[in-house]
């Protein structure tokens, strides 16, 4: 492991569905404050990896660990694993074993947020309401688990105003403030994608997992997405894990790329390294490694 502070460590992740092996012995790390991209042809198992990381699937094998705070917390990893606990909370940080946690705790405690390949907004609720649902947990606490709210205590009203203000700031950042009271389902596609990102950010995450955020966006919108993600990284210092097919996004903003093919990792490194890797090219072209040079010559690459 490099001396970059690791935030996420995936070790020997295997996911089987009946007889089908979707992910096979995958190991990689994501460094703190970096944008890590997970790429590969369709059906490579990328969304499955996401679902394992975010607690929607329980992996067949493997360990997925997430760290908050000081890098020294990683030393306790094996102890936590053996003890059977889900997490370790210490003064200098925390360690979470994500494969042992249900999805809502992965978001709430481990502070991992995600977006979906097929946009999952709340279409019948307004843009503003979508962002308020994201702040459910702090608001629930402030409402005294509803009791203070029903009684109409001012402490809840203040918390709600703060939540609305936070939502408004995000809406300004993504340019949707004028449409705050419109139903989310009526937004144009590009706006819906941006809203999903903003909604994920409203949960105050430390790791943001984006599943094909640029899917269906035109080049201008992809460019704006790049700016948004880089700005988020700069302003909030969070780490981003990205599944993407759009190479203009991947190559421009990633610090680190992991390539998957049929559930197996075939490359792992800096963007330039990965782009020139013959195995990667072969996977995307759909030919065996040895054939690559010949096919490239034929095609004129």
């Amino acid at each position, binding site marked *: 492991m490099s001396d970059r502070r690791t935030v996420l460590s995936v070790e020997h992740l295997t996911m089987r569905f009946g007889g089908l092996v979707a992910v096979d012995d995958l190991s990689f790390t994501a460094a703190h404050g970096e944008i890590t991209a997970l790429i590969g042809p369709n059906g490579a198992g990328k969304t499955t990896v996401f679902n394992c990381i975010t607690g929607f699937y329980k992996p067949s094998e493997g360990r997925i660990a997430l760290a908050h705070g000081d890098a020294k917390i990683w030393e306790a990893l094996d102890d936590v694993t053996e003890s059977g606990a889900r997490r370790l909370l210490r003064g200098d940080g925390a360690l979470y074993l994500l494969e042992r946690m249900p999805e*809502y705790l992965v978001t709430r405690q481990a502070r991992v947020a995600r977006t979906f390949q097929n946009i999952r907004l709340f279409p019948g609720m307004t843009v503003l*309401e979508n962002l308020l649902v994201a702040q459910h947990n702090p608001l629930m606490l402030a*409402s005294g688990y509803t009791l203070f709210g029903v009684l109409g205590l001012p402490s809840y009203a203040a918390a709600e105003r703060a939540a609305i203000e936070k939502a408004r700031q995000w809406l300004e950042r993504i340019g949707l403030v004028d449409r705050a009271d419109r139903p989310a389902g009526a937004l144009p596609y590009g706006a819906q994608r941006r809203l999903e990102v903003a909604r994920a950010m409203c949960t105050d995450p430390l790791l943001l997992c984006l599943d094909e955020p640029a899917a269906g966006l035109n080049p201008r919108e992809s460019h704006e997405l790049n700016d948004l993600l880089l700005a988020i990284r700069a302003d909030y210092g969070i780490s981003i894990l990205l599944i993407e097919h759009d190479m203009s996004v991947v190559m421009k903003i990633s610090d680190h790329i992991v390539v998957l093919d049929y559930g197996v990792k075939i490359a792992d490194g800096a963007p330039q390294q990965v782009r020139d890797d013959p195995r990667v090219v072969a996977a995307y072209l759909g030919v065996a490694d040895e054939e690559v040079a010949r096919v490239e010559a034929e095609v004129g690459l």
Partner: protein
Amino acid sequence: MSAAPNTRIDVARALRDAAWTALLAFGLFLPLIGFLTVQNLNNTLILETRFGLLATFVAITALGRLAYELVIAPMRARAALRPAPAKPSRLRLLMAMLGRGFTPFGIGFIVVYPVIVLTINGTGGAVKWIDNFGIQIMIYVMLGWGLNIVVGLAGLLDLGYVAFYAVGAYSYALLAKNFGLTFWMLLPLSGILAAFWGILLGFPVLRLRGDYLAIVTLAFGEIIRLVLINWVPVTNGYAGISGVPRPTFFGIPFNASDEGFAAVFGLEFTPLYRTIFLYYVILALALVTAFVTLRLRRLPVGRAWEALREDEIACRALGINTTNTKLTAFAMGAMFAGFAGSFFAARQGFISPESFTFLESATIVAIVVLGGMGSMVGVAVAAIVVIGGTEIMRDLDFLKQIFGDTFDPTQYRMLFFGLGMVLIMVWRPRGFVETRQPSVALKERMAISADLVKEGRG
């Protein structure tokens, strides 16, 4: 898929369609209308014919189809082709104005309803109107608002809601009769017991999706009813529990004695006083239900319910424990049913398993769906239409003069209820109210059309 609206009147085709319809109607009605199985004096089953009646049915159906093809369909086609007016018509503007005033007017009307009835009918006739209509409808409004939390807001399909109603009623009946606790003490207690049952029943089943949740809740409702029927030592089975203590006016009973309400207030005794008191009690309970629901909708828990209905997986991805969210919805709905149940037992003085059938659950679900979009006003209007409609049908004695003395309109009540359910769903699948009001707004609250709002997958 529909073709372009055809404004031409094609008489030949209309006649042909009517002929096919007549044939279809013949096939449909021949076995059970054309023939009658009846027991003769020897108690054996014999067959009689009613071909005249059959001919009437076929004729009405065929003529109806003909009328549709010749008159109604071209009218609708012409209306569809007319361009939409640039400015809303004066009628539309009037409707919009009325719509805004509807809720305060409605509440005002409901509050002074007994007074109106008294002035029109006098003390004699008023009891029936206040009790069978007013109180009965208010109970269903409250039940509808309670189930609205589960079905309308959280999108969970509960077909066994009557079970919680029964828990409320039987717990009040048994505890009041055997332990002498008063109505006001037992009211919150029944609610808590029902909520507890809600959590107990909800816990194993809330991870089931959509239709499966519906079937399981239906099964639970039936199991509870069957237990009520068969557990005779406790529930007295089919015979039910009678002599349930009636509510008092804060300690003063409503009877003809010297300590009774009438005597204490220097008035002449009439059952009207208790009826009016009960009416205002259920009105208060219903308004509390409405108040709590509206409040909850603006709180995180209510927003979580609606988000759950829209997309459960997205909720989980936002850190919301959806199991707890569902349980809370279930428990709150159950609690209000418990309140309603204990009121019901107190008002009747007698309860039996007959009142807690699947038909009741289905009726309440129909009221909520008919209301539309989780709207409180919609549910109230739906309850008035459905319950008021079926109650009025009890009263149609004048039809005896048309159809003869053997005609019993109450038999047809349920027939038209079922038919009505089908027709209303076909006419307005999303219910009366077709928009959703957001619970919070940055600048201005705008209604959201029904097309965008999800119904929930359970």
